[in-house]
C-alpha cells in the first residue's frame, strides 16, 4: 500500500495556507508533520483527510499492485482532530459502539480497545464525567475499534500525561508494524524507526 501526495496546496478564502507539499509513504511508514503554530499543519492534515478542498495537487492511495483504491481517500482514513467527536451525554460504550457501527470494518471490541488505553473501568460512565486526558484516550480508542489503513492524527497527545503518551506511541508502533500508514502533526517525536518528517513553513 502506498500513499502518494503531490504538489498539495490549500487556500483558505484567498490566502494560501500551504503550498507544494509532496511526499510518499508506504505501508508501515509514519510521517511526522512539524512546524510553528499557524504554519498550516492542521490544514494540511484536513486536506489529506478530505475535509478541506485542495487548490492544486493530488492524493493517491495505491495497493500492492499499484492499483488505486476505489472511492475517496477519506473513506480509508481515521482522523483524530483537535476535538474528540464524542457526545457528552452518552456513555463511553455508547459513543464507541456508535462509531464502530457507523465506520464499519470492526477491529477490536470496545472492551479490548478501552483496555489498550487503560480505561476499561470507565466503559459505563457518561463521556462528560471523564477528565480531558481520559477523553482524549477514549477518542484514541475510537481509532482501534474500526480497521482503517491510514491514521491521520492532529496533536494526538494534547492533554495526555507522560504514561499515556508512551501508551499512544506504543499503539502507533503496533499500527505501523501491522502495515498501517500514520500521519501525525505533533511536537513530540514518536520514535518510530520508519519515521519521516515534513517541515511546514519555516
Amino acid at each position, binding site marked *: 500500500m502506498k500513499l502518494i501526495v503531490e504538489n498539495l496546496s490549500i487556500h483558505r478564502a484567498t490566502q494560501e495556507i500551504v503550498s507544494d507539499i509532496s511526499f510518499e509513504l508506504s505501508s508501515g511508514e509514519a510521517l511526522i508533520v512539524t512546524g510553528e503554530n499557524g504554519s498550516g499543519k492542521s490544514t494540511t492534515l484536513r486536506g489529506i*483527510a478530505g*475535509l478541506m478542498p485542495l487548490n492544486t495537487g493530488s492524493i493517491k492511495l495505491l495497493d500492492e499492485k499499484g492499483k488505486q483504491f476505489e472511492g475517496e481517500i477519506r473513506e480509508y482514513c481515521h*482522523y483524530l482532530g483537535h476535538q474528540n*467527536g464524542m*457526545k457528552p451525554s*452518552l456513555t463511553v460504550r455508547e459513543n464507541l459502539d456508535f462509531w464502530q457501527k457507523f465506520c464499519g470494518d470492526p477491529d477490536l471490541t470496545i472492551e479490548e480497545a478501552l483496555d489498550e488505553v487503560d480505561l476499561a473501568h470507565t466503559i459505563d460512565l457518561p463521556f462528560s464525567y471523564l477528565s480531558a486526558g481520559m477523553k482524549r484516550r477514549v477518542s484514541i480508542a475510537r481509532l482501534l475499534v474500526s480497521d482503517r489503513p491510514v491514521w491521520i492524527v492532529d496533536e494526538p497527545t494534547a492533554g495526555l500525561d507522560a504514561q499515556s503518551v508512551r501508551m499512544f506511541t506504543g499503539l502507533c508502533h503496533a499500527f505501523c508494524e501491522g502495515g498501517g500508514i500514520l500521519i501525525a502533526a505533533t511536537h513530540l517525536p514518536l520514535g518510530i524507526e520508519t519515521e519521516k518528517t515534513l517541515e511546514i513553513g519555516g
Partner: protein
Amino acid sequence: MFALLKREVLLSIRAGGGTLTGVLFFLAVVSVFPFAVGPDTKLLSHLAPAILWIGALLASLLGLDKLFAQEREDGSLDLLVMQSHPLSITIFIKAFAHWLMTGLPLVLATPLFGIMLNLSPLGIGATMITLLAGTPAISFIGAVGAAVSVKLPRGGMLISILVLPLVIPILIFGVAAITGALEDPAPFTAPFLFVCAITLFTSVLGPLAASIMLRHSAD
C-alpha cells in the same frame, strides 16, 4: 445507519428532553390563542386547524439549530462526512430522527389540544393525518437551513427565517385539507395529496441540498 438513528434518539432523550420542549412550546402557542380570540367557541373551532398547524410548524423548528452545529462543535461532523456512506443518507437519517423526536410527539399531542380549541373529532382526525404527512417535510427543509447556518454562532434565528417561507406551501395545503374534511364542498384528497407530495419531494431534495452545503462549508 440504524446505529445513527439510535444515537440521535438517545441524544434527544438524554440532552434535556428535546421532545418535551417541543410539546410544551406547542401547548404554549395553542393555549394563548383562545385568550386573544375571545370566548366565541364557534370562531375558535373554525380557527382551530390553522392554530394547530402554526403551533406545530413553530414547534418543529425547535432543535433544528442543533442538528449540525452541535456535531461541528464536538468534532463529530468531520467524522460523519468522512465515511463511505452517502452524506445525503446520513442527513436523511438525522432529519428523520429530528422529526421522530419533535414532529411525531406533536402529532400525538394534537387530540388534547384539539379539544382545547373546540375542534370536532373529525377535525382532530384530519389534523392528525395532515400533520403526520406534513411535519416530516419541515424537518427535511430544516436540515437545509441547519446546514447553511452550521458555522454561525447564533444560527437558530437564521434557520427560522430561511425555513419558514419554504414551508408555507405545506401550511396552505395542510389547513386546506382539514377544511376540506370539515366543510362539504371543499375537497380533502387533493390538498392532502399535495402535502404528501411535498414531503416526499423534500425528503429527497432536502438531504441532497444539505449534503452539498456541508461538503462546501469545510474549514
